[in-house]
């Protein structure tokens, strides 16, 4: 039974289902409804099939290798290699795509009649297939092909809602950035090919001892940049907060939840698997980047009042947290501490899974909110929990999970990441120890700020009173959308409670990647699902924690409700605000909430505060008619790095184009003669 499910037929079946869904959607494009149902249904089937396949691969522990070489093209082989790591990413992707497809059935309805639904269904399915292939391919060229297809499909999805010029711009930025990233990846693979003679990962890995160190280092840096663009590390992240909000929400959920993880997957695959052994400084570089990403990511998130951009910046933060695990694993494996490396990688993998779940949940619920209110601006929300309680509850679950608060899943992966860093402090020598101290502090700061940010996000969106007419008329999401969100919310809880079991599974995956063997077990699960690190240095029990956190407040409630003063009467009344006429304009806004943190970190964020006052009459500047304060934070990288470079290129372009193509035919002929003379001169030299 297991072997049947784990057979490649299942994978092919999954791909075929997505294919049928995509092509069928195009054929059915005349009918919006049919195209939607068809593509979503097949995406659902495909996700389930892929999930079953990947889970049974993991369960049976087998590795699946398939290869078809191309007759026409040497070097290109359609090579799949599904080991535990790939299977794990397959699981992650298919879980998220399953719920997003379910949600999509309801969400897509808003595009009926405005856009071509068949086209959306095609791209959506293509996107998922490409992601599945990205994490399973084991040939550099094949990988690049599916990688670019994934990027292209997601680009078209980002630019899908094309009537908004912002989305088109976002798509442009996204595709340009990802293309430049691909150029770096291409170079990395070509470098490897030049020195190993193959694009196949297994061959490259086998030939690794013969590759000179500086080539490996170059490959590392190139791949870090290339995959870093996709993963959204700072400072290569600028496309991410623009592109993720632009796509339809269920696509944003997939992009943020799993697509950026493909960058992480390749980093793990290359740095910890193919290119091993790695020097120490790789890990240090990754750690530094990770720290920058997580701290700055969460700070920028705090400054946002566009709900999807806020979530997108949190993706950057969480990528940073995942990279903390990856970077620590690199450092540990370079120092020969394979046990610790396994621990760190396990943490990274677990956070990958968790972030996929809760971030897609958050994007889906944000999508419901946007669907209901027609705006992404959080300042125009408020009080939505009364109008859309289910969405509010799911967003709350996601918020608790992403803030790493117990007992949901985010806490346990962050806990594990912390443990890896703690062990780094405890077991490494002087300089590396200080590095880990700094990194630990950064992670703690990040998680603190994340809590603040999600208090803001949830509070400003769902609590208090509606701040716009659209928000007053908001409505609950449709049943399928709720089902999609509910599934992910349940997973947040389930993965949290079952974290010890999952961590144990992930540890075997990590051991497989690092080929560390069973002896390198730092995480043990003792009876009662108690997770224990380094022989009891740290222990935590997820079920107990969950039980207590649910039971104790319930007990408190029962006692206070029924044990004391049972005849108490609870009435509702106005909010007390000193007797004034409280309006929703007096509520704390998103900008107001974050203002103090922004000002504290103004050295990093460089906010610009603008006051503008309009006076009643010009002569007496005493009575202002209106006052406004704008607090805006611009991405410093955009201002100080990307914009100058871009403007420089534009200038250079004008200069070259107008200088050479000056319209003067004499000049043109002069060029020819100059070239001729120079070359003839060269003949003399050679």
């Amino acid at each position, binding site marked *: 039974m297991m072997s049947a499910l784990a057979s490649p037929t299942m994978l092919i079946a999954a791909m075929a289902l997505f294919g049928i869904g995509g092509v069928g959607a195009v054929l059915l494009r005349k009918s919006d409804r049919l195209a939607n149902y068809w593509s979503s249904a097949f995406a659902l089937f495909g996700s389930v099939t892929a999930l079953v396949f990947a889970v049974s691969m993991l369960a049976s522990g087998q590795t699946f290798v398939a290869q078809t070489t191309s007759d026409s093209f040497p070097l290109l082989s359609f090579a799949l290699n599904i080991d535990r790591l790939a299977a794990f990413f397959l699981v992650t992707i298919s879980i998220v795509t399953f719920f997003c497809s379910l949600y999509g059935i309801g969400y897509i309805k808003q595009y009926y009649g405005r856009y071509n639904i068949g086209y959306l269904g095609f791209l959506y399915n293509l996107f998922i297939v490409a992601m599945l292939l990205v994490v399973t391919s084991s040939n550099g060229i094949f990988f690049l092909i599916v990688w670019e*297809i994934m990027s292209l499909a997601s680009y078209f999805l980002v630019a899908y809602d094309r009537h908004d010029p912002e989305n088109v711009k976002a*798509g442009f930025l996204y595709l340009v950035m990802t293309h430049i990233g691909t150029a770096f990846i291409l170079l990395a693979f070509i470098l490897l090919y030049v*020195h190993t003679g193959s694009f196949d990962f297994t061959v490259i890995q086998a030939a690794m001892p013969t590759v000179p160190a500086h080539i490996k280092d170059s490959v590392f840096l190139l791949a870090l940049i290339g995959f870093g663009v996709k993963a959204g590390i700072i400072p290569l992240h600028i496309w991410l907060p623009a592109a993720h909000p632009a796509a339809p929400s269920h696509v944003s959920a997939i992009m943020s939840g799993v697509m950026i993880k493909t960058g992480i997957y390749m980093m793990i695959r290359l740095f910890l698997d193919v290119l091993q052994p790695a020097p120490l400084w790789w890990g240090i570089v990754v750690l530094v980047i990770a720290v920058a990403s997580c701290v700055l990511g969460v700070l920028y998130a705090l400054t946002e009042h566009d709900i999807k951009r806020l979530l997108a910046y949190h993706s950057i933060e969480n990528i940073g947290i995942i990279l903390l695990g990856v970077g620590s694993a690199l450092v540990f494996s370079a120092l020969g501490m394979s046990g610790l490396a396994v621990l760190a990688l396990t943490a990274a993998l677990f956070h990958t899974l968790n972030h996929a779940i809760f971030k897609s949940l958050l994007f889906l619920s944000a999508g419901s909110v946007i669907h209901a209110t027609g705006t992404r601006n959080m300042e125009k929300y408020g009080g939505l929990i009364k109008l859309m309680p289910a969405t509010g509850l799911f967003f709350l679950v996601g918020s608790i999970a992403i803030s790493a608060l117990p007992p949901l899943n985010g806490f346990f992966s962050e806990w594990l990441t912390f443990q890896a860093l703690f062990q780094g402090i405890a077991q490494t020598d002087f300089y590396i120890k200080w590095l880990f101290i700094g990194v630990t502090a950064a992670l703690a700061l990040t998680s603190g700020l994340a809590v603040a940010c999600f208090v803001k996000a949830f509070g400003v969106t769902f609590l208090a009173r509606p701040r716009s007419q659209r928000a007053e008329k908001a409505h609950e999401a449709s049943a399928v959308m709720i089902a999609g969100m509910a599934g992910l919310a349940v997973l947040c809880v389930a993965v949290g409670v079952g974290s010890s079991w999952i961590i144990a599974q992930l540890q075997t995956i990590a051991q497989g990647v690092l080929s560390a063997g069973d002896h390198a077990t730092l995480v043990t699960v003792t009876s009662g699902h108690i997770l224990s690190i380094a022989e009891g240095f740290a222990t935590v029990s997820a079920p107990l924690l969950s039980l207590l956190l649910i039971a104790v407040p319930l007990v408190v409630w029962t006692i206070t409700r029924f044990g004391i003063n049972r005849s108490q009467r609870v009435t509702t009344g106005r909010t007390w605000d000193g007797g004034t006429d409280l309006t929703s304009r007096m509520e704390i806004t998103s900008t107001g909430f974050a203002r103090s943190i922004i000002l504290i970190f103004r050295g990093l964020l460089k906010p610009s505060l603008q006051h503008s006052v309009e006076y009643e009459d010009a002569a007496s500047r005493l009575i202002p008619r209106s006052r406004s304060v704008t607090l805006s934070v611009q991405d410093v990288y955009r201002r100080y790095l990307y914009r100058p470079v871009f403007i420089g290129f534009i200038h250079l372009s*004008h200069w070259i184009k107008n200088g050479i193509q000056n319209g003067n035919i004499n000049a043109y002929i002069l060029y020819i003669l100059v070239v001729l003379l120079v070359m003839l001169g060269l003949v003399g030299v050679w």
Partner: protein
Amino acid sequence: MIIYIVVGGLLTASLLSLLFKNRVVGAAASIIAHGLGLIGAVALCLRVASDGDYIPSLFTLVDPLSALTVLIISIVGLAASVYAAPYLDREVSKGIIGPKRFRQYFGLVNLFMACMLLSVTAAHPIAAWIFLEATTLSTAFLISFYDRPSTIEAAWKYLIINSTGLLLGFFGALLFFSATSRSGLDGFVTWQSLLQQAQSIDPGVVKVAFVFVLVGFGTKVGLAPMHAWKPDAYSKSPAPVGALLSGALLPVALVTILKFKVITDTAVGGAFSSHLLMVLGVLSLLIAAFSILTIRNYKRMMGYSSIEHAGLMALGFAFGGLGAFAAILHLIYHSLIKAGLFFTAGNLRLSFHSAKIKNVSGALKVVPVTAGLFMLLFLAATGLPPFGIFMSELYIFGAGLKQYPIVTIVALLAVALVFVGFFRQVSAVLFGDPPEGAQDAKSNKWLLIPPIVLLSLVLVFSFYLPPPLLDLINEAVRRYDL
């Protein structure tokens, strides 16, 4: 014989279209002639693939590379004439050109095709040169087709620059002969005999000769900095002519350079010609990349894109080995894609009445199919998978990285920059709100079929090369890459 039949067919069609007043006759005759040409080209390819060089007479020699080029020319030529009929028809009906022009077009274009075919299959270098020069003359009229000052200026520049270039090329060819005659070669000098004598040629003369050939025929290819005629000629001529210039004439000229290159390489070793090609290739890439970034006319952009691809091919041949294989593939892909791009650009022009990017926007709304094709062809042209140019570029870079890392990295970055610039313009054209007066030109599906067919062909060739084709490419690589 095949070649002569095909050329005869083309010339007949040319005559018919000039003689008969009825537009349909000329167009139909051309399409039939081109169709025959394609059949002939396929037959030729099959024959060369199975039996080796095809030498029907003293004047004609079809080696694998020539056969491939003939195939490319024929495909692009057929597509162009199928496209040209409805395209020009529409322009006639809009009053942009007179009905007489329609006939003139087919008359000239058939001549142009015949010259290209003869040039690429000529056994004699001087004959090849003569026919190439003849293409210059026939196309000059096609470039000045719209008979406006700007088009006439473009044609004039084209004529002068190309003639200058070809004169240098001619001088180069003569230098080859002068070098060989000293080593006892007399009479009718063919490519083969030149090659056979190559070992004994004076290396110094060969180097000088190759420089002249490279600069001369490089002008025709459009390698920078001899490229200056290209943006003007491409943007002013009718769309199908642009397709032919980029998709057919460029390969012909490039193949001629290659034929001289192999002789040079035999005489003085591969490094000399490789370095020269590399210099021109990188220059072309850089100039094209930076020019595209701020271009304001989407047809001029095609010209720069051609320059970029010519540069890439030059690099591929310069790197040799896998690079040469990839460069030949690139040649095929580029011709098909660029022709398709010109057709879609022509459709855009028909709908928006302007080739300026600022006048064109919201194409996805006005002409969704054309816009979609334009997008896909753009992606194909800039080397995104699954389209074949991705593979050929990858191979070219792979071939060059070890020996010439800096050149390769510069080229890679330039290619990425081309993508950025190209995408910037495509984005501006496709999205946004359409201007007033834009109208859908899709009513004639024959305006859409040629680019669709070309795109599908590229997609097929990207993953599957028919065995004869692969044999031809491999054989060509074996011959031309020493």
